[in-house]
């Protein structure tokens, strides 16, 4: 932990608070939709620029914190404002920054309360980046909850028919997990304080707490309750399909691309390092749930009629893969998991973007009413084909690299799990091809808007497509960045 880095320019804080600044400006200029639009785009682009700049300029291959900030905050409880970024956070922040630009662009034509919409999207970005950076448990919890409110409104205000149900379900599900997390955080803090006399919420300090096994297990379960719901792992996933289905395009992109990742990040950053013994004991259960979820969600996805639901269940299935990789507890599988998180963020985000475009043209998401889109929108359909195949794990496209690394890692430690998990790839093909079949092939169901991609849509889809191909063909840079931190995390050391 390098204290001297905190003296340098607070890049992390800049990254964190820039979107919030954008929010304020958006609310100030709320009368003009165009101003808000450009403000949001400008802010997200700026964040992307800063994070890419950091990624390029920092020596990313090294372990340890790339950047670190630590300030006093609430002395009464020993809460500090501690931010730190290692390779994993860097990658996830890059993903966040990128997807937020996409989210803003896809909502460019937002007519319903644009100022509020963009403001909320930006608040969400702060929340997500905060989760990826915070190293003080209360600070983490704060950002963790901060993500809820904007998402709740995004679903509830700009969503579709059953939006209120979905929004409330989302809120209650995730909050139920996180309140247990809060209890566990406070208890752990008290325990640590009693043992050492130092009352602090710093992750590094709390790791030193001596716990007996029962305590560790209880705390671990409380921590995992929050993360597992967010991931979401079977059987805590039922909020996700509803939330996805009802959310507006940008909401779905953020939800699938980013929010789910915060759960996994919480596990690898907090739950596992804090309670290594309990984590080790829980791995078989975790793996079993992940495997069940992997198949179960894929099966359900196969029968859905709403194209958003299909993709939503596919998210559950893919995240099952990610968790399975974590449960294998070795370098390769973890690298695969992090890589799959990123690829899944891009591909699923892209799919939701495309669904929004399809919906704009056909005014429906029902598979029965869709079909033959290639005839009127070949370009759009071609992108859709690409992303669907990326999602089902075609080698050379994004998801495959992560999946195969996970499989290799899992197989080397638990051959049976690995062998079963391979089956998931088959069912992924089953539902994705059904989706393709119903949407772009078959006889043409006349869309009311026959225009193919417009310029803005090209602008959204080309970066996504390039990223999907890049992550599939040459994921090595990403792997290099995450290697050292994962090594440290697996050894139980602090990055």
């Amino acid at each position, binding site marked *: 932990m390098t204290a001297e880095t905190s003296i340098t320019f607070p890049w992390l804080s800049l990254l964190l608070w820039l979107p919030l600044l954008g929010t304020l400006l958006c609310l100030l200029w709320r009368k003009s939709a165009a101003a808000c639009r450009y403000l949001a785009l400008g802010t997200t682009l700026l964040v992307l620029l800063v994070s890419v700049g950091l990624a390029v300029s920092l020596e990313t291959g090294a372990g340890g914190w790339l950047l670190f900030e630590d300030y006093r905050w609430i*002395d*009464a409880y020993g809460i500090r404002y501690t931010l730190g970024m290692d390779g994993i956070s860097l990658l996830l922040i890059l993903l966040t920054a990128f997807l937020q630009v996409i989210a803003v662009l896809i909502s460019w034509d937002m007519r319903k309360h644009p100022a509020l919409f963009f403001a909320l999207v930006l608040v969400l970005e702060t929340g997500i980046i905060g989760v990826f950076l915070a190293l003080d448990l209360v600070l983490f919890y704060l950002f963790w*909850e901060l993500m809820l409110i904007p998402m709740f409104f995004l679903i509830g205000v700009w969503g579709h028919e059953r939006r209120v149900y979905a929004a*409330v379900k989302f*809120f209650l599900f995730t909050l139920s997990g996180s309140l*247990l997390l809060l209890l566990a955080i406070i208890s752990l803090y008290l325990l640590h304080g009693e043992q050492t006399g130092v009352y602090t919420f710093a992750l590094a300090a709390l790791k030193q707490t001596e716990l007996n096994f029962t305590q560790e297990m209880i705390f671990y379960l409380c921590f995992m309750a929050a993360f597992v719901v967010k991931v979401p792992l079977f059987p805590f996933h039922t909020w996700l399909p509803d939330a996805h289905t009802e959310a507006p395009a940008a909401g779905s992109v953020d939800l699938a691309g980013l929010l789910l990742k915060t759960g996994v990040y919480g596990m690898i950053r907090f739950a596992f390092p804090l309670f290594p013994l309990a984590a080790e004991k829980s791995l078989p259960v975790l793996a079993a749930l992940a495997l069940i979820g992997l198949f179960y969600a894929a099966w359900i996805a196969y029968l859905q009629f709403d194209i958003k639901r299909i993709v939503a269940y596919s998210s559950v299935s893919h995240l099952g893969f990610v968790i399975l990789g974590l449960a294998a507890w070795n370098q390769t599988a973890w690298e695969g998991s992090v890589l799959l998180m990123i690829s899944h963020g891009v591909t699923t985000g892209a799919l939701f973007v495309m669904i929004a475009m399809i919906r704009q043209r056909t005014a429906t998401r029902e598979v029965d009413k869709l079909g033959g889109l290639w005839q009127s929108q070949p370009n759009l359909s071609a992108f859709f084909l690409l992303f669907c195949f990326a999602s089902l794990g075609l080698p050379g496209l994004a998801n495959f690299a992560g999946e195969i690394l996970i499989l290799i890692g899992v197989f080397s430690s638990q051959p049976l799990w690995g062998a079963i998990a391979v089956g998931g790839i088959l069912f992924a093909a089953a539902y994705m091809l059904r989706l393709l079949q119903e949407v772009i092939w078959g006889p043409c169901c006349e869309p009311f808007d026959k225009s193919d991609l417009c310029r803005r849509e090209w602008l959204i889809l080309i970066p996504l497509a390039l990223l999907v191909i890049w992550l599939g063909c040459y994921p090595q840079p990403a792997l290099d960045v995450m290697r050292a931190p994962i090594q440290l995390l697996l050894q139980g050391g602090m990055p």
Partner: protein
Amino acid sequence: MNLLELQSLLPQLILALGATAVLMGGAWLENRRFWLLCGMLLALVAALCAALYEPPLLEVAGMYSTSLYARFCTVVWSLTIAATLLISCRYADLHCFGGGEYAALLLFAAAGMSLLSAASSFVGLFIGLEAFTLVLYILIAFNRTDNRGAEAGLKYLVFGAVATGFLAFGIALIYTATGSFHFAEALAGLQLDGGLRPLGLAGWAMLLVAIGFKISLVPFHLWTPDVYQGAPAPISGVMATAAKGAVLTAFLPLLAGLGDAAGEIKSVLWLLAILTMLGGTFAALPQTNLKRMLAYSSVAHMGYMLVALLIGGEVGGQALLFYLVVYSLATFGAFGVITSWALADEEIQEYAEIRGLGYLHPRRSSALAAFLFSLAGIPPLAGFFGKFGIFHAALRSGYTELAVIGVLTSLISLYYYLRPIIVLFMQDRSAYQLRSGCREEFILLGSCFAAILLFGVYPGPLLELVALVLP
């Protein structure tokens, strides 16, 4: 009473004498706004005086202490009353309140509350409590054109009077058992393993019934929703915040002084806290009226604060006071929004009536949403650190079960806090065209909002202040 004693009670005197003056003046000069502002200024002066003026005596007439704690409470209640007067400007115009009386009564209430929090003997406690209860009887039914106001006034009157009976009887029993009204001696008397101890406990039982009524603990809470619904919105705000807070703050030192003898009483409080948290939460779930929902929510919050009260000590006291301030800000703000939405003939309180108002009145609606989120304890609003403090205190003192129940109820409570937000922002517009708010309302709501946001992001100073003033 000598001069020094009067000097020590200066803030209360300002309030009481000012109230009398306003009452007199109000009979001559019928300028409503002038008297309201006048009252507000008086309350502010009292608050300033309490905050800055070091009283020469530590205790006045063996009845009232002038400790930092008492002064802090005086400041808070005076500010609450000032805020109430400020936000009532338009409301009073709309309902043709007599400006002088209204301001005077509220100032009396402030005096009563500050006396109550400052009480160091049961006599002082009785007088302070009765002083603002009597005022509230009138204020609740202040709106003479409203049937509901009358009904609410009646209900509060009957229960208040019964509760006064219980309180007095409890005090009498304790006095019988210990021979003293002064907290320190009366409580010390209870420590003895004498034969009169059961009498003292019986007195505490009566006392708890009375407190239970005042801060509406389950099962003494039944009046709360009806009265809040019927009373004018600003008055409901005062009742939900300052009136309850004054009682809680009065009992915090009382329980702390009880020491080892508190075992039985704490176990009753433990039971009441659980009942209150659960009862308030569940009863609020099906509500479709904003004021009733807020009433039940205040019941549930009293449960949380009871947890802190029960824990006592530095940790519990800090949590309690912080929670109280934060809760008061949010609840008062919420009632403030209702005040500012009021029409001439009725208040907008049903969910059906506020449909889609979020986009018609974005500032007030967002403020209301923020207050509700704060009450639900969602960061980054102050309510989060309030709950954090309570849970922290509970876990630290080994009341894990209370913390777990608290967590459970705050999860469930989220549902009823979300409902009005959903109605405001996620449903189609209703036909209601409300008046746009006035400057005073915006100032007040804005400062409430800023405060809960500030304390949510940077609660440090408030926490330190609270720790400083604890008795």
